[in-house]
């Protein structure tokens, strides 16, 4: 869940950021994503494959949001 919210937040902020802030936001998001994975793995709450699957779900939801954004933007323009 955190991965999804972080990825979508970066996606939504992207057009409003300068080049330097984009680099920082990508770096921060990477640290948060890797940290979240480790936080789940270290106490033994989740398996490694669970963490990989959650990253995949986060990417899938990001792609879904990007598609919704893309198609609704086109329809709004037209």
């Amino acid at each position, binding site marked *: 869940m955190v991965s999804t919210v972080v990825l979508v937040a970066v996606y939504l902020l992207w057009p409003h950021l300068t080049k330097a802030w984009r680099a920082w936001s990508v770096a921060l998001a990477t640290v948060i994503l890797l940290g979240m994975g480790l936080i789940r793995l270290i106490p033994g709450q989740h398996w490694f494959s669970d963490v990989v699957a959650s990253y995949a779900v986060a990417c899938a*939801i990001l792609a879904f949001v990007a598609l919704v954004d893309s198609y609704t933007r086109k329809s709004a323009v037209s």
Partner: protein
Amino acid sequence: MPSSTPMSRAAAWLTLAVSLAIFGLCWISEASNTLLAGRDLSIAHWFAGHRKHLASLSLDASALTAPAVVAGVALVVAVLLWFLRHRRDACLLALATLSAVGVTEVAKKSSVAYVLRRRSIFVQKPKRPSPPDTC
């Protein structure tokens, strides 16, 4: 990133397909305990041997990132975005959060028994091979 060009749209479709394929692969590998899931136990044992003081810290941190907390924060941000006239962004953030909550709940409910069965190994300490006999 956000654009409606055919190229970016194709990239989004490709990302969606690859992500779902990886998710499906993880699901199949967990059910059959092969591929990636075949490595799970050794990775869990490695973390069990190295966690020491980090375990309690990680549990506290993961309590802070519970789905209810994250969903609450995301919805507050969405409401703020709505009132700041970024209504489109607010809707997209709410859509992403609700999708994540839905997927998390479905995944948890569909595999509760399976997760509990697998999680039971963490109750016991990972077994080490017995030391060689010195006699």
